[in-house]
């Protein structure tokens, strides 16, 4: 056998690589500038993400094609009845909106602003069970930005934590590193909903024992962090434990969004303070809701 390594085991090279990796990690943690490098690298890896998503996509398309007439008819009737129900709910919407506007004027409050939304499709899920992240098929090219809130049909889903050209990465509200300011829809009590690393559970931090909070209360986003728009459903309170031995009560909630099932998601354009004035002036012309 020939000698394989002329200079023996490449120890020096190994140390150089280890130090390089550590430098990468530290700079990734500390400086936002590595994000550009990451964007370029993600661009190279994007085809692999598409490839991974291919089987699901094909299965979706196939199930669209190979569907029986009977189930189509059934779907159709079901959707029709749903439309009637929703129509009935919308009938009063216009008058209620105007009434709300008038009351807000009386209170000299601000107008409530509707948010621009953009539809995005899920193309991947982070396989690491410690990180609740999903990948969407919209990126910088579509105007996605860091911190953009993401909703599904039922409620708040998460926020964008990483953008590349054609994809973006969304951290779900149940990720152990995520926190979200919420309020109780019933009485406006404010709290912070923390992710616990489990898809079915959020926890409310620092809720005093005397707070008026009950099982079944709906939590909506309070908009206080300046990141999530006000008033979208976040979770439903599932348990309240008041233990006299603890300084705060333990409140758990079940997320409203279908975190592990939604495939079509909405990226929301949040309304920030300085933007609010201009949007207010030309609200009806500029802000439009995407009907989907």
């Amino acid at each position, binding site marked *: 056998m020939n000698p394989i390594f002329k200079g023996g085991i490449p120890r020096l090279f190994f140390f150089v690589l280890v130090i390089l*990796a550590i430098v990468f990690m530290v700079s990734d943690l500390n400086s936002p500038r590595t994000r550009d490098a990451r964007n370029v*690298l993600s661009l190279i890896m994007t085809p*692999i993400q598409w490839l991974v998503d291919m089987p699901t996509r094909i299965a979706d398309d196939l199930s669209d094609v190979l569907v029986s007439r009977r189930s189509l008819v059934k779907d159709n009737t079901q959707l029709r009845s749903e439309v009637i129900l929703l129509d009935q709910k919308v009938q009063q919407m216009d008058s209620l909106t105007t009434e709300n506007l008038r009351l807000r004027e009386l209170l000299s409050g601000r107008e409530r602003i509707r948010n621009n939304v953009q539809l995005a499709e899920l193309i991947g899920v982070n396989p690491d069970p410690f990180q609740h992240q999903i990948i969407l098929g919209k990126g910088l090219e579509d105007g996605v930005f860091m911190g953009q809130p993401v909703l599904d049909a039922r409620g708040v889903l998460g926020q964008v934590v990483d953008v590349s050209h054609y994809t973006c990465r969304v951290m779900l509200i149940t990720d152990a590193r995520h926190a979200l300011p919420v309020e109780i829809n019933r009485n406006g009590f404010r709290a912070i909903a923390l992710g616990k690393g489990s898809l079915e559970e959020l926890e409310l931090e620092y809720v005093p024992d005397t707070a008026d909070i009950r099982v079944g209360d709906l939590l909506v986003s309070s908009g206080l962090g300046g990141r999530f728009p006000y008033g979208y459903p976040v979770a439903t309170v599932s348990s309240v434990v008041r233990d006299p031995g603890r300084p705060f009560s333990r409140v758990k909630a079940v997320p409203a969004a279908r975190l592990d099932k939604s495939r079509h998601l909405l990226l929301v354009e949040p309304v920030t303070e300085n933007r609010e004035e201009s949007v207010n002036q030309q609200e009806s012309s500029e802000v439009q809701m995407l009907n989907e």
Partner: protein
Amino acid sequence: MSKRRSGGIMIVVGTLIVGFILSQMPLPSMLVWWRPEWVAMIVIYWVMALPHRFGIGMAWVSGLALDVLKGSLLGMNALSLTTIAFITLILHRRLRMYPLWQQAMMVLVLVGINQLIFHWIQSLTGSTGDTLVFLLPAVVSAILWPWVFVVLRGIRRTFHVN
């Protein structure tokens, strides 16, 4: 000679890409902790089989690619894959002599080291649980090793990568 060499590299990169895809494949939530570390296994195989061509440099690059793909801290997989590639490099003569089950034991240890490095870095950056389930992929990888080994050896022999 040189033409054949470049062809061999394409095969190695091809198996790595398959590894990347497998490591991203969605799994049912029951099995989410049981995902084998495909890329680590493929790196171990190529370092063991072709230590003069597939070294720790390649391991580092594939680790970085995996980091980007997984969205983990940039350099985390690079660090762990380089480490296990380095250990494999030291041990490769012995590993080649081992029967398959004994190799699988070594894979258990190597992927275990890989997972430990992950766990340390993740706990340094504050996102981890306090269970030992993060070691499960090492067990699954060891169980799957004989098949991975046979398949990769088949590929290597069919395409004369050496």
